[in-house]
């Protein structure tokens, strides 16, 4: 097990958005979180990387279990150095070219020497098929390319887990494929990933675990094949059916 949260709760303005989430990710797992908009998926990922402060719960990482609220700044930074986050809106450093985006976390945070950082950075860019675009700035890249640079940036620091929050939702349909295929190859390489997505086909074919969330709760979690063939909860069945219809409509307009 790489990462586990227990009884994670979070409210915004008195409104409880996460109502006690239990979730664990094993090494090499590609776990997909599914669920309708507003379910709390983004908030969960952001709490798991401390971009939001959860109200309560426990987190286990590197064999240490800590109450989330007691994590010190130092512990959070150490934790973040072993995790990575891919945002819906890419969030590339706008004043840095692709290579510098990827190496920033190495040279600045880990004090990696320039030559080594460059080598690792170029390898990471090659892995997402963008070695030729190393010196381009974000505004010179398409959305799909920007998201692939963001994935390279996540890979460069060799994290134990990468969080993805709807990595293709901000992209034009014709650009989602290139990002999903990069993620597919990472899954094949055994990268541990926790992915929020609405790409149902991707979830079905790439992930090995599904967590279905609704209204701030985990409704059902389990092996991908099982969830798709024998979902236990009615809500899961309904959601999957709806998603499959939607994605079929997209394919045949």
């Amino acid at each position: 097990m790489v990462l586990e949260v227990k009884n994670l709760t979070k409210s915004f303005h008195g409104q409880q958005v996460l109502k006690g989430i239990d979730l664990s990710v094993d090494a090499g797992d590609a776990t997909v979180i599914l669920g309708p908009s507003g379910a709390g998926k983004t908030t969960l990922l952001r709490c798991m990387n401390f971009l939001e402060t959860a109200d309560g719960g426990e987190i286990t990482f590197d064999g240490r279990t800590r109450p989330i609220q007691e994590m010190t700044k130092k512990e959070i930074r150490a934790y973040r150095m072993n995790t990575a986050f891919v945002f819906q809106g890419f969030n590339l450093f706008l004043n840095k070219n692709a290579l510098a985006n990827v190496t920033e976390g190495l040279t600045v945070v880990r004090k990696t020497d320039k030559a080594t950082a460059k080598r690792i950075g170029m390898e990471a860019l090659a892995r997402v098929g963008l070695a030729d675009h190393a010196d381009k700035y974000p505004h010179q890249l398409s959305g799909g390319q920007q998201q692939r640079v963001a994935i390279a940036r996540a890979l460069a620091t060799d994290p134990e887990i990468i969080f993805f929050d709807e990595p293709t939702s901000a992209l034009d349909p014709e650009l989602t494929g290139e990002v999903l295929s990069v993620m597919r190859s990472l899954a094949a390489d055994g990268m541990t990933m926790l992915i929020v997505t609405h790409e149902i086909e991707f979830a079905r074919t790439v992930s090995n675990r599904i967590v279905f969330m609704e209204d701030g709760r985990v409704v059902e979690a389990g092996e991908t094949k099982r969830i798709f063939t024998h979902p236990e909860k009615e809500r899961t069945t309904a959601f999957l059916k709806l998603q499959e219809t939607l994605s079929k409509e997209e394919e045949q307009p």
Partner: protein
Amino acid sequence: MNNVWELFLDSFPKILLPGLTMTIPLTVISFSIAMVIAVIAAMIVYVKVPVLTPLIRGYIWIFRGTPLLVQLFVVFYGLPRVGVLIAPFPAAVIVFSLNEGAYCAETVRAALEAVPTGQFEAGYCVGMSFLQTMRRIVLPQAMRTAFPPLSNSLISMVKDTSLAANITVTEMFMVTQRIVARTYEPLLLYVEVGLIYLIFSTALTFIQRAGEKRLSAYTARG
């Protein structure tokens, strides 16, 4: 007419010299200090540091809400009343720095606020601290946004240094006034000093353009 031309040629270097030895140093020194004040003040307000934020806001409020000339008089003619005597040039530097710092702090703060919060979050997620992200990611982007308005402030400041004549700084305008008193050619000489200010600000405009070009590498603009 010949006389006029001769006076022009004769007075030109006499006015230009204090331009080079007073106006430019006064501008460069004051603006540099103002930038340090502006960046620090802007960051304090941006982060909402308790206690300091209201102090900074008060400082900005006072220096933006009162005339520069009044500020010069208070520091140079007023403060000696309570035993604080400051020589003309340092007094001018203090007032111009604080005045310009107040204006530029607002410019830099607005530019900081225009940087998307996702830039910070991305920095945190690769393990950077707040200060590292600020220094390497957010502040450079904010300064890029703030560059044109800051350049405009600098150009205004060159012209405003003429007010220092009122506190006996022998800068260009003061020297011009003295020549006028001697030759009684106000039209010619005041147009002439205006022309020199024009040359200074035009030069700065060119520098501004070149600077913007260099900074445009990572923006879709320009």
